[in-house]
């Protein structure tokens, strides 16, 4: 492992290991085996190297943060996981098998959902309809039946609506169910985006700066929801966030990136004490 990386694994990682026993967090949560493993990932855009030879893993049920200064390659890393970018080198293992290059919708079908740094909702549609789009991967009826709202399409919509309503209840947005998204304040839009991602019932949830631009109260609410999602549904969460307080409070393990390289990996306390990380954030005298 690289310099500055601290291992908290109970077992040594074995090449190709599908699953191991995981670990138990300070607050008593059982974290499972490896869900995803990124091996020696490099991403190049022409001559620019955005990510250079990064390896880390994501375990089942954990909250895994990726942090780093601006331009460190965090969002690129998330885009690789979500299938939007294909790594130039390296491999991505998911649920014990190497994942071939995939389109984002194919990744979504494998149970990976995400939210975006800049909110990407349908502004003119109601909150409910926006969240329903999160169920798209679960709808199989053909276009003709859907247009006529007939037979299988109808049954499917009813079943899917039930899932969506549970998400609405969970995120406490009943009061804005029928409100067009364009009329909502920023903090609530972020929550609707989370709702849409949750509606897909993902096993892994990617959150790109879920707290950006929020006030303290909104951040507290969002933190609560992230913890609750993880707790109630056992969803694995990968998050990028700038607010260090939030990251350190929420996450089980943190990957720190700087200039496309991994400079730290471990539990929040270990990362906080890591000299390379301190230097990256506070700057060093050259």
């Amino acid at each position, binding site marked *: 492992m690289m310099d500055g990386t601290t291992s908290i694994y109970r077992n040594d990682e074995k090449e190709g290991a599908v699953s191991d026993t995981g670990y138990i967090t300070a*607050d008593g*949560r059982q974290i499972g085996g490896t869900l995803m493993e990124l091996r020696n990932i490099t991403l190049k855009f022409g001559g620019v190297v955005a990510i250079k030879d990064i390896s880390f893993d994501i375990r089942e049920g954990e909250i895994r943060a990726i942090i780093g200064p601006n331009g460190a390659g965090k969002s690129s890393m998330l885009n690789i996981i979500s299938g939007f970018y294909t790594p130039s080198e390296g491999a991505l293992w998911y649920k014990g098998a190497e994942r071939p290059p995939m389109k984002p919708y194919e990744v979504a079908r494998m149970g990976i959902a995400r939210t975006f740094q800049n909110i990407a909702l349908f502004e003119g549609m109601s909150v409910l309809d926006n969240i329903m789009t999160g169920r798209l991967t679960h709808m199989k009826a053909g276009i003709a039946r859907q247009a006529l709202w007939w037979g299988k399409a109808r049954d499917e919509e009813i079943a899917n609506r039930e899932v969506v309503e549970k998400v*609405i*209840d*969970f995120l406490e947005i*009943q*009061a804005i169910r029928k409100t067009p998204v364009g009329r909502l304040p920023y903090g609530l839009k972020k929550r609707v985006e989370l709702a849409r991602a949750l509606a897909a019932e993902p096993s892994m949830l990617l959150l790109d700066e879920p707290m950006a631009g929020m006030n303290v109260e909104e951040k507290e609410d969002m933190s609560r929801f992230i913890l*609750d999602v993880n*707790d109630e549904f056992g969803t694995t969460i990968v998050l990028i966030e700038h607010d260090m307080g939030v990251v350190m409070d929420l996450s089980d393990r943190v990957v720190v990136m700087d200039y496309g390289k991994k400079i730290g990996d471990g539990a929040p306390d270990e990362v906080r004490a890591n000299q390379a990380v301190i230097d990256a954030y506070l700057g060093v005298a050259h």
Partner: protein
Amino acid sequence: MAYMSEGAEGLRSIPQLLQRNVSLYGDRPAWREKEYGIWQSWNWAEGEQEIEAFALGLLNLGLARGDHVAVIGRNRPTLYWAMVAAQMCGAVPVPLYQDAVAEEMEYVLSHCGARFVIAADQEQVDKVIEIQDDLHQFEHMIYVDPRGMRKYDHRQLHEYGHIQAQGRAARDELIGELDARRGALGYDDTCVMLYTSGTTGKPKGVVLSNRNIIETAKASSEFDHLGPGEEVLAWLPMAWVGDFIFSIGQAFWTGFCVNCPESPETMLTDLREIAPSYYFAPPRVFETQLTSIMIRMEDAGALKKRMFDHFMALARRVGPKILDGAQVGALDRLHYALGAALVYGPLKNALGFSRVRVGYTAGEAIGPEIFDFYRALGINLKQLYGQTEASVFITQQPDNEVRPDTVGVPSPGVEIRIAENGEVFYRSPGVFVEYYKNAESTADTKDADGWVATGDAGFFEEGTGHLRIIDRAKDVGKMADGALFAPKYVENKLKFFPNILEVVVFGADRDRCAAFINIDLTAVGNWAERNNIAYASYQELAGHPKVLETIRGHVEEVNASVAEDPMLSGCQIHRFVVLHKELDADDGELTRTRKVRRKIIAEKFHDLVAALYDGSDSVYTETEVTYEDGRKGKIKATLTLMDAKVVPVAPPAMAAQ
């Protein structure tokens, strides 16, 4: 207390009423709650099963006769069932205000010595856990919503559903005991204990017997001809006596259906979907709704606005008369019918008042314009006057005798007496048993013959026999020159302006009156938006010079109106300050039922009061505020003190000469 007849056989407690309702109305809906976007419903028979299972579960946990069971949460069928289940076991339910902070809960929970707490969700559970070390009798907590609760220590913490499951499993073993306890409930046994919000001092536990609740529910249901077909929306705090009477007392007596909103925020949508036939709301809610209608009409198209203005003018002229069955010309009636089709109907539908047959408001004075607006639309809105100690009803307005400035005639079975100092006393079957563990206060309030002091000053109007309330008896005072000082009278006049949310008038033993004013953020914010006035916070808007000018205009208008009454002309407001924060129950400035606590406000803002009287133009102040999660912070502000013109009146002394 005069002896009153025993309740009809088998109808001496809420659990017995439940059994009667199961046999009379078994398959009619008794409770509904919107959950996952759909109205879920339970009929009386299903409800009884739920209640019985929970009661058996409580017995299984060791609930004893006479135990107090605290219930904390928003209006939900499960919590209503929990209260009745506690009664079945011979225990006493004690509903608490769900928005109370942990310290407030600690007082009530330790005062009543609750062994069991039933909490709605994690938020409430957390509050109780925070204070549990100081609660010596507390043993078990049961929560309804399991969300977020998985990691908690479950040795003394139980899920509602599990308790019911345990109860069902132990049915054969425990049903004998439950039947014995249910059968032993007497008419004078305690039905419920409710804590008064307490405008002064600590809350007091008001003990109400089955007789109090059932006699009151019976009389008031008959007064308004309530039947099993009514629909009500249960949304007012469960700890408030009114909710207990409406959603349990009257609902169980008449067998009507209680609907619970999905969440507090969706209340107005749910109101519209349910369209209750019997409705209660404090004046503030009617004010807020009217303000939002007016704001929306400002934004409406020209045609719609003209139609609204035209038909509302007509409605204000003839609407209340039509509602009271008075003489109205055929042409006006026709015109009104057209208005009903085009404006009133759709408006009532949007408000959720399409089916309201009986609507009540109480707790505070309601502005005549607001009151008339709803009556003009054909909504039978009435006023009542009541107290926790009276099981709500003291006076109420009969149909067709409704006016904004009175609180009506004595409710059936209620006797009223006005003392020499103007204080109103009453005696009725609803009069409370006692204040729990507080014999001294009980004796102060209720005399040996059962007469209860309301603490309000009022008089009966000649001719109509309607009661008029002037003010809290102890708030009515004298100014330095001996003139009568009735703060609430002036405050209410000011609060009728949509821009003003709350007012506190000072002036007792002083030579002139001054006031604290809270702006209404909705109304003033909308005005600011339409006039391109930018503001970043409540504080900034409240201090904006144009806002201060507008408020000054309102104050001067009220001064002119106060000056017309020779008795009260001394109460004109000379100086006022618009506060930098909203008065809040979390900061102890209001009670949980949103009444102002004068003494506490005067002490807390003593610097501002001083500045109002020392002639300075502005004052710097720091105020401690409590956030919803109980943390404290400080806000700092420099406030401008405003002078207002008063109308000169001849001093009363000269008039007497």
